[in-house]
């Protein structure tokens, strides 16, 4: 229960904080402070239970199928860390209240801070690996938001992004590692995983697991070579730096390493990866820290260095080193947070953190100076402060390393060197800022900050001193609980005494102190360090930026090769994939011709297809320059197709194909008006490349054509399959009530297809209409066509352009108009004829509708838009809607009677004198088809036709089309 409280308090607080007004600075601070303090107290109160029971647990099932549970688990180590997180959180909140400017929109700040705290507690308290990864990534996100808190600054944005990228990537790697780990252990439960140590180290995946986990941990803890993000994260407000980037979040990496130490450590790989990264970070970051100009920069590099120290300790494969690591985690948190706070105070009071500009502040702000000096001393490892103790343990471990000789010599030397650096930069930090002559041109006049701002720092310094002087009493118990939790029965005995006698480690400490002081005195006392000797060229940020730009441009480069914006390319690929796949399959499976006796070849039919095929080829040949000819050829091919349907017993198809053919021709011609003229003479720039491309296209197209032909032939020569057809033929009359099987299928057996099909038609018509409403013709097709201009210039009256009042179009369209209008009633009758008898003979709603629509279009053609619409009001949209509704109603009618949708209901009756009457819901359905087809076709064609009206607005008639 308490665990749940610990877990929920910060998140709840975060949510509350987000909704406070942006100027509620005090309320925010109170809220956050209470939440943090409350959490701290709850955690503290749990100590007896933890130390007595070892582990406190809370399990809530989440997704058992996935092996996911919400599992909170607090052992000694987690307790120590949780206390660190929440306690430090409390102090930072207090500090931040005074640090943040009154104009800052703090709700966001406190909200994310608390969210971070919750996430960090989540990491620490997770008893389930996946859950831990979740919180791990959430800390990255929170850190991102906090670094970019001042997002109007470019450095903040860049730093945030860098931090997120590096730690997020590490998080994903960790995710992978944990997945493998869980798989090996058979469970993601931390206890189960910890118990599977032997299995894990013996598993072939162990190296992968180690690498992935190390990636996660090292990125998070800013270890070499991923350390570069941390200095850039210093763009965050100082409380954030103090909290996330020194005390807690960066510790998550080492926390994890310590957590998994029992199962992953003990191998050479572990030593080299973890220890190596730690050592590099320790030395390198220490060296770099000496040359920083920014106070926070120094602290950032020193953080990296100290984390390196911890990592190195963890990598040493020794239990005592682990103890030292845990100890140093706590120590580092106290003195580094305190130092950050001091840096923040300096920044806050003077307006700058530049070591070059700051000087002699101890006079104006003595308390700050004193606190900072003590904390820096702890960092340097001065005796009687906590830093000294853990560093001493570290030195001791380097000496007793259980490794080959040269490593046993090299490591202590490197450790001492790092100690020297550490002393030097600590000294530099304090000396340059607080001592020396008073600084002049500072942005603000320095003065001591308010007491409340000093309090957190003071408390931390006090902790440093207390631990340094009486370690066993202050922290001994807790440390032991923590290490026992990690190591269990293997926990070594150790003493936390301040004085161990004259030992090698002590000697190393002394060397480090003296060497560091000397180094500072010689190298830095007079010189302002601006550049980093030796490592000048290596700039993490530049490498990172180059990497990111490289990734982007590399991806762009790859995309240019792997993708294309050209439609031709895509078409080619589509056909090539289909062709290639089919060829592969056909070659491996083999398809021969079948045994079905073929129909005797009719020469007339062959001749028909000589014509059709030639037309098709001619279309391909002419479509570029002679569009009208291409349309004519396509008409020829279409005619051949229709005739084929007639020939091969498909009258319905022939009818439909013919009508569609006509309408399509008109449609394309209507469109032709708006296409640019294309002239063979000017566009015919030859060259080999287009010719080659054409050849390639011809080959692909030819191959595809041949393939389809072969496919068709292979099926045609095989005996038919007794599938659906016999049933349809037999059931057509008795059950479907129609002689025309095709029509019965369309409106009854598979009426649902037709239903969808007419919907498609309606949709397309709507789309066409919508698209043409915003149509903007190309400039050169705006004016009247040349023919009309010429005829107008020659004094020929525009034949069909008349106003509604006149009876007939004048001029040469007069007689065609008379004839066409004679045709209209006839065509209407024919369309009704096809509609009504479709069930028993070729025809049906679709053909009927197209006939009517064509007849209407003919009126437009001969009479002109204005004339026709002045006397004929068609509402194509209503026709479409009514058609759809009629079809739906025909279907629903049956549904109301309890039968499924689209069940046909027929009514037969006998009327006197007239005879048998046959009514069916199928007819209503077909009527729907009819209406929709009329509406959609007319709408599409007329919408295109209206473009001419629109481009000559003075001749338009209002509201002609709806």
């Amino acid at each position: 229960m308490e665990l749940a409280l610990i877990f929920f308090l910060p998140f709840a607080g975060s949510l509350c904080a987000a909704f406070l007004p942006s100027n509620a600075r005090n309320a925010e601070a109170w809220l956050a402070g209470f939440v943090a303090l409350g959490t701290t107290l709850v955690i503290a109160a749990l100590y007896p239970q933890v130390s007595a029971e070892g582990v406190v647990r809370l399990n809530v099932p989440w997704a058992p199928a996935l092996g996911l549970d919400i599992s909170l688990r607090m052992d000694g180590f987690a307790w120590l860390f949780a206390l660190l997180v929440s306690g430090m959180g409390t102090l930072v909140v207090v500090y931040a209240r005074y640090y943040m400017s009154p104009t800052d929109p703090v709700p966001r700040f406190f909200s994310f801070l608390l969210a971070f705290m919750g996430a960090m507690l989540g990491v620490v308290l997770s008893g389930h690996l996946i859950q831990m990864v979740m919180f791990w990534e959430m800390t990255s996100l929170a850190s991102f938001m906090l670094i970019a808190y001042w997002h109007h600054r470019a450095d903040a944005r860049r730093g945030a992004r860098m931090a997120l990228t590096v730690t997020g990537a590490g998080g994903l790697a960790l995710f992978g590692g944990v997945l493998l780990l869980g798989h090996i252990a058979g469970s993601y439960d931390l206890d189960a995983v910890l118990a599977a140590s032997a299995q894990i180290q013996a598993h072939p995946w162990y190296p992968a697991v180690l690498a992935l986990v190390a990636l996660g941990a090292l990125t998070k803890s800013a270890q070499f070579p991923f350390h570069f993000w941390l200095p850039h994260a210093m763009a965050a407000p100082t409380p954030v730096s103090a909290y996330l980037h020194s005390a807690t979040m960066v510790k998550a990496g080492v926390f994890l390493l310590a957590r998994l130490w029992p199962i992953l450590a003990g191998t050479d790989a572990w030593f080299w990866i973890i220890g190596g990264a730690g050592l590099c970070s320790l030395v390198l970051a220490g060296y770099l820290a000496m040359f920083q100009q920014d106070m926070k920069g120094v602290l950032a590099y020193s953080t990296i260095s100290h984390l390196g120290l911890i990592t190195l300790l963890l990598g040493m494969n020794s239990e005592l080193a682990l103890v030292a690591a845990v100890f140093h985690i706590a120590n580092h948190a106290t003195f580094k947070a305190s130092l950050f706070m001091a840096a923040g105070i300096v920044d806050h009071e003077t307006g700058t953190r530049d070591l070059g500009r700051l000087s002699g502040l101890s006079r104006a702000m003595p308390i700050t100076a004193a606190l900072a000096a003590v904390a820096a001393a702890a960092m340097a490892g001065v005796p009687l402060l906590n830093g000294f103790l853990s560093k001493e343990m570290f030195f001791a471990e380097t000496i007793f390393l259980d490794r080959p000789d040269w490593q046993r010599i090299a490591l202590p030397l490197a450790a001492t060197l790092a100690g020297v650096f550490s002393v030097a930069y600590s000294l530099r930090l304090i000396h340059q800022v607080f001592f020396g002559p008073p600084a002049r041109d500072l942005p603000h006049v320095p003065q001591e900050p308010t007491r409340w701002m000093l309090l957190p720092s003071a408390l931390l310094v006090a902790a440093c001193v207390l631990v340094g002087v009486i370690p066993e009493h202050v922290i001994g118990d807790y440390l032991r609980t923590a290490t026992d939790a990690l190591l269990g029965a293997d926990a070594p005995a150790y003493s936390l005494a301040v004085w161990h006698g004259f030992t090698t480690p002590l000697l190393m400490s002394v060397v480090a102190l003296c060497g560091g002081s000397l180094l500072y005195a010689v190298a830095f006392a007079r010189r302002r360090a601006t550049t980093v000797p030796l490592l000048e060229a290596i700039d993490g940020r530049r490498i990172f930026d180059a990497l990111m730009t490289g990734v982007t441009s590399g991806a762009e480069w790859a995309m240019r090769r792997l993708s294309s914006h050209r439609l031709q390319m895509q078409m080619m690929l589509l056909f090539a994939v289909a062709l290639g796949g089919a060829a592969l399959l056909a070659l491996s499976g083999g398809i021969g011709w079948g045994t079905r006796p073929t129909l005797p070849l009719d020469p007339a039919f062959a001749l028909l297809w000589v014509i059709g095929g030639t037309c098709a080829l001619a279309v391909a040949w002419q479509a570029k320059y002679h569009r009208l000819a291409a349309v004519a050829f396509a008409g020829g091919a279409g005619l051949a197709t229709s005739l084929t349907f007639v020939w091969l017993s498909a009258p319905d198809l022939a009818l439909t194909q013919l009508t569609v053919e006509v309408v399509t021709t008109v449609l394309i011609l209507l469109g032709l008006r708006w296409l640019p003229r294309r002239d063979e003479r000017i566009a015919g720039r030859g060259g080999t490349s287009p010719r080659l491309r054409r050849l390639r296209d011809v080959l692909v197209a030819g191959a595809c054509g041949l393939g389809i032909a072969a496919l068709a032939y292979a099926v045609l020569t095989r005996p038919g399959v007794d599938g659906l057809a016999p049933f349809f033929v037999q059931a057509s009359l008795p059950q479907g009530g129609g002689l025309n099987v095709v029509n019965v299928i369309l409106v009854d057996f598979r009426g649902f297809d037709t239903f969808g099909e007419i919907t498609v038609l309606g949709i397309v018509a709507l789309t066409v209409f919508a698209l043409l409403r915003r149509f903007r013709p190309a400039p050169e097709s705006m004016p009247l066509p040349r023919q009309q201009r010429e005829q107008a210039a020659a004094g020929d009256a525009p034949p069909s352009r008349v106003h509604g009042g006149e009876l007939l179009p004048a001029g040469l369209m007069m007689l065609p108009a008379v004839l066409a209008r004679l045709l209209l009633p006839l065509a209407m009758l024919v369309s009704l004829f096809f509609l009504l008898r479709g069930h028993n003979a070729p025809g049906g709603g679709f053909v009927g509708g197209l006939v009517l629509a064509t007849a209407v279009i003919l009126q437009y053609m001969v009479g002109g838009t204005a004339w026709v619409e002045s006397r004929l009001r068609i509402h194509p949209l209503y026709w479409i809607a009514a058609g759809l509704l009629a079809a739906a109603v025909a279907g629903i009618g049956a549904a109301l009677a309890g039968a499924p949708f689209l069940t046909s209901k027929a009514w037969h009756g006998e009327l006197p004198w007239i005879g048998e009457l046959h009514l069916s819901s199928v007819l209503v359905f077909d009527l729907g088809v009819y209406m929709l087809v009329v509406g959609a076709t007319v709408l599409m064609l007329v919408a295109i036709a209206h473009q001419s009206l629109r481009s000559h607005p003075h001749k338009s008639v209002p509201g002609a089309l709806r």
Partner: protein
Amino acid sequence: MSAADVPLWAALPAALLLICGGLLALVGSLGLLRLRSFFARIHAPTMGSTLGAGCVLIASMLTSTALAQRPVVHELLITLFILVTAPITTMLLMRAAILRSDRSES
């Protein structure tokens, strides 16, 4: 029921008419091919569409009447439609041709 079942009284004239119609259509199309200029060519296909079609339609009427054993005359409609529609195309085509030949001359 197919062409072979048509009684002789209908088959004989129908066959004659069919042959005539086919020949007329053929000659008309041939004219389209052989004549030298467009203005000459435009006359030729009319053969197929008037008398040629007429012959075939009468043949069709004859055979279907014979087969159905009652007068079947709905082919008249086709005649009607052909007659009504033919002038529209021809007129427009002629005008367009005149216009275009005028333009190419000038």
